[in-house]
């Protein structure tokens, strides 16, 4: 699997499908889903794994439904993240 630089999480229930994020995405990796959410909107989904974590989509999103993650130097040190406890527990191996 190729190293992913960035990724996003979309709160699809709150998305109103305005597509402003799609038009702001330089990687053209966002598109409307054919499915509807419970409010009756086609919601946005990521269709490509080429996200750079540039945050453009989240910046223009009027409903704050997009969380953006980007791999940083700091996180590349990690070997595992265990999440079955409250909060993240990072284990570092030297």
């Amino acid at each position, binding site marked *: 699997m190729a190293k992913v630089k960035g990724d996003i999480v979309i709160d699809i229930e709150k998305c109103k499908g*305005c597509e402003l994020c799609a038009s702001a995405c330089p990687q053209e990796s966002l598109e409307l889903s054919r499915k509807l959410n419970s409010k009756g909107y086609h919601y946005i989904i990521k269709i490509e794994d080429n996200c750079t974590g540039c945050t453009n989509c989240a910046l223009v999103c009027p*409903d704050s439904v997009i969380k*953006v*993650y*980007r791999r940083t130097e*700091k*996180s590349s040190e*990690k070997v595992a993240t265990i999440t079955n406890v409250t909060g993240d527990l990072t284990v570092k191996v030297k």
Partner: protein
Amino acid sequence: MNERRMLGSDQELLDEHYEKVIAEESVCISDNLVYGKPETLTSTPMHYCPGCGHGVAHRLIAEVIDEMGIQEKTIGVAPVGCAVFAYNYFDIDMSEAAHGRASAVATGIKRVLPDRYVFSYQGDGDLAAIGTGETIHTCNRGENILIVFINNGIYGMTGGQMAPTSLVGMKTTTSPFGRDTHEMGYPLKITELIAQLPGVYYCSRVAVNTPVHVRKAKKAIYNGFKYQELNKGLSFVEIVTNCPSNWKMTPVESNKWLEENMIPFYPLGDLKVPKKEN
């Protein structure tokens, strides 16, 4: 299509699941989070139409409040208009003003609580038509508050009537053949007017239609709060924005129209910046 992104609205659950499934490969861990909903924004879904700039403007204010750590000391004033429910979305104390009077209400609050951060959030009908008097005098007194002015050139809440800032020739429900200056006067550049007043310390016009503009808008809002902290006087930030529903366009089209029509008439940038203190 990626199934893991369609689990529902519970972000935490989603994150947890996401991290469990692909813990080692995933970028989506809290250390890597570079952009998310600010804490000062409540989780209440906004009532605004899809693509409406209000949402971005709200988020930017909330981000600045978060970053300055002033949530407990900020009091907002909501207008009458689309943003009438703004108090549902900000997790701060708020007062809902009568139409056009937000800056007077903000004055009242700031005068009795001078150490709090007070801002009013007003649309073009509210600020530049019915509330022109309050706006100009609040600015002229140099009240130490921030006024955020949302200009989309139309009355949104009442269904698309002509606003004082509607462009010449713009079709609205009350200018169905286009705004005719002979009959209906000219679009009001109230921000230019306000920038002339000595009580105004900082005056800027921004937009939220592109990522670059959003970043600049946030900086302007930050400046507004910062100058308030420094007791400098009034800050006025106009946000030129869209109204897809009443402009009768898709959100993407409306932002294009904004770029091609609104911004040339309402040019972006600082109208008044503090003189450099030596």
